[in-house]
C-alpha cells in the first residue's frame, strides 16, 4: 500500500537524520523514534481499561504534585540513593510502608515478600533476600533494618495451617512460609490461646526475622560496629495501631566462680 511505504521511507529518513545529527547509531536511533511515537500516542491516549487508567492518573498526579514541584530533590536522587532504612514488609496490598509511614523517595530500600520473612543465611536457596541485604548493608550502608509485620496476614495464616505431615498444597507458598516454623513452634509451646495465636505468630515471625538477620556476616559486622540497628514493627489495621521495637544484643557481666 502506498501509504505504508511512504511512512516507511519517512521513518528511514528520520533515522538517517538522527544518526547524522545526534550521532546515534541504528539501535539508538530506532529507540528514539519509538519513544517519539509513543509520546505522540500517549498524549491523546485514554485507556479503556480502568486498571490502566488508574495508574495513568496515579503517575500524572505524582509527576505534577511531587516530581515537578521539587526538581532539586528529584534531580539529586537521580544521581544516587542513600536510604537510611532497609525495610522488610509484607506483599499484602493493604500494608505499603510508603503509605502508612510516609517514606519519601530515597528513604527506604524496600523488600516486600509474603509474610515479611527473612530467612537465615543461605546462598543457594535464598539468594534473592540475601542480595537485597547485601546491597543495602554493604553497598548503600543503611543504618536501620526494619521488619514490619501486620494483622490478618495470609502468609502467617498459611504457616499456622501447614500440615505437620509434610504434605504440600501450594508448591511455592508452602516452601516459603516454612521459614517461619521456629516461630510457630514457639507460639504453640507457649500455650497462647487459639484465638490469639495468629496475632502472636505475626509478631513472633518478625522477631524470628530479626534474629535471622544476624546470621548474615555483613549485618553482624555492622551491628558490632554499632552502625546498624535492627527494629521490628507491627501494623494492626483492624484497630489502627502501630508498634515499634528494637532488637538489642548485649553481653552481661561475667559470673566469676572461684
Amino acid at each position: 500500500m502506498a501509504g505504508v511505504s511512504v511512512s516507511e521511507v519517512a521513518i528511514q529518513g528520520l533515522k538517517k537524520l538522527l544518526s547524522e545529527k545526534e550521532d546515534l547509531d541504528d539501535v539508538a536511533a530506532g529507540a528514539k523514534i519509538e519513544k517519539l511515537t509513543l509520546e505522540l500516542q500517549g498524549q491523546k491516549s485514554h485507556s479503556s481499561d480502568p486498571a490502566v487508567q488508574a495508574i495513568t492518573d496515579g503517575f500524572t498526579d505524582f509527576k505534577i504534585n511531587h516530581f515537578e514541584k521539587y526538581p532539586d530533590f528529584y534531580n539529586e536522587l537521580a544521581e544516587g540513593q542513600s536510604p537510611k532504612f532497609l525495610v522488610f514488609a509484607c506483599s499484602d496490598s493493604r500494608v505499603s510502608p510508603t503509605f502508612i509511614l510516609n517514606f519519601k523517595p530515597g528513604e527506604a530500600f524496600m523488600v516486600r515478600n509474603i509474610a515479611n520473612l527473612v530467612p537465615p543465611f543461605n546462598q543457594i536457596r535464598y539468594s534473592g533476600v540475601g542480595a537485597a541485604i547485601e546491597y543495602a548493608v554493604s553497598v548503600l550502608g543503611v543504618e536501620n533494618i526494619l521488619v514490619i509485620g501486620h494483622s490478618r496476614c495470609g502468609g502467617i495464616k498459611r504457616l499456622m495451617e501447614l500440615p505437620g505431615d509434610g504434605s504440600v498444597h501450594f508448591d511455592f507458598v508452602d516452601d516459603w512460609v516454612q521459614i517461619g516454623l521456629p516461630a510457630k513452634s514457639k507460639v504453640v509451646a507457649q500455650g497462647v490461646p487459639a484465638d490469639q495465636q495468629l496475632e502472636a505468630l505475626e509478631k513472633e515471625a518478625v522477631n524470628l526475622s530479626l534474629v535471622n538477620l544476624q546470621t548474615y556476616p555483613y549485618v553482624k559486622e555492622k551491628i558490632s560496629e554499632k552502625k546498624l540497628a535492627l527494629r521490628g514493627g507491627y501494623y494492626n489495621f483492624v484497630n489502627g495501631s502501630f508498634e515499634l521495637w528494637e532488637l538489642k544484643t548485649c553481653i552481661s557481666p561475667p559470673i566469676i566462680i572461684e
Partner: protein
Amino acid sequence: MAILPSISVSLDLDPQRHTAVLLRTPTISTPFGLHRISVKPQKIFGFKMDSREIEQTRMRLSTNFNSSTLTTKASREPSGLTQELDSKLQAVPESESGCDLFKDMKHRFLSFKKNKYMEHIEHYEKLAQSQAPKFMVIACADSRVCPSAILGFQPGEAFTVRNVANLVPPFESGPSETNAALEFAVNSLEVENVLVIGHSCCGGIRALMSMEEEGDSSSFIRNWVVVGKNAKASTKAVASNLSFDQQCKHCEKESINRSLLNLLTYPWIEERVRKGILSIHGGYYDFVDCTFEKWTLDYEESNLKEANGGISVKDQLFWC
C-alpha cells in the same frame, strides 16, 4: 566449653518516658508490675518468649527484645499531640538516635492515621476483612521507585513484591520468595494484572552487566542477578557498540521483557493468560526525566515468535 547463645526477653518499660507522649495505650501486665491504662481495653499481649537460659560460668550472651518503645493507638478525638504534617516533603531528622527515630515514626503513623485512615474509616474497615487487589506488582527494592508513590496505588489495590532489579525467575529455577508471591497473588487472590516495573540507573542491572563470567560466587548479589543473564546476553548481542550506560539502560528494559516471558513458564499463569483472565504488563520508570512507559504482552503474537525467544507487545503507552 561452648558458649551457647540464649534468648531471653525482658520487658523494660519506662513509664516516665511514655505516659507523657502516648494518648491511649494498651494495658500491659508485666512481671515488673507496670501498667498503662487504656480507655478502650486492648488485648493483653506479652513478649513471653521461651527463655531457656543456659547459665555459663564465664559469659552469657543474651538477646533482648527491648520493647521500651511506643505503641500508638487509634484516637477518634482530635489530639493535641498530633501535628499537622506537610505530606509532600518533610525533612528527615538529622539524629539517628533510637528515641528520635521512634518519635519520627510515631508522627508519620499518626499523620497517616488522621489524614487517611480515619478519613476513610469505612473503606479501611472493609479492607481489614479481606483484600481483592486487581494488580500484582513486581518492582525493584530501590528506595526511589516505590509503586505506591509513583503510580499512586492505594491500600488494597496492588499486591506488591519488591526485590533487587525486579527479576522474575523462571519456573524451573525452583521455589523463591518471588514465585511464592506469584502463586498466592494469581491462584488465591486471583489478580487480573501482573505488572513488572523496571527503572533507570538500576544498581542490580548494572551489577549484572558488570559481572565477569567467572567471578566471585560467594556474592549474593551475583547469585541473584544471574537470573537476568539472558537479558544481558541479548543486550550484548545488539548493543555492544553503545556506551556502558546505554547498554545498562537497554538491559533494564530487556530484563523486564525476559521477566514477562519467565512469567509464562508458570503453568497456572500461562493458563490464565491464554484464557484472557490475566494480563501481563511491563513498565519502565525513568526518574531522570520522569517518564513512564507501559506495555502489555501480546500472548498470541508472542507464541509465534517463541522459536527465537521474541516477545510481542501491544497497548504501548508513554507518559511524560
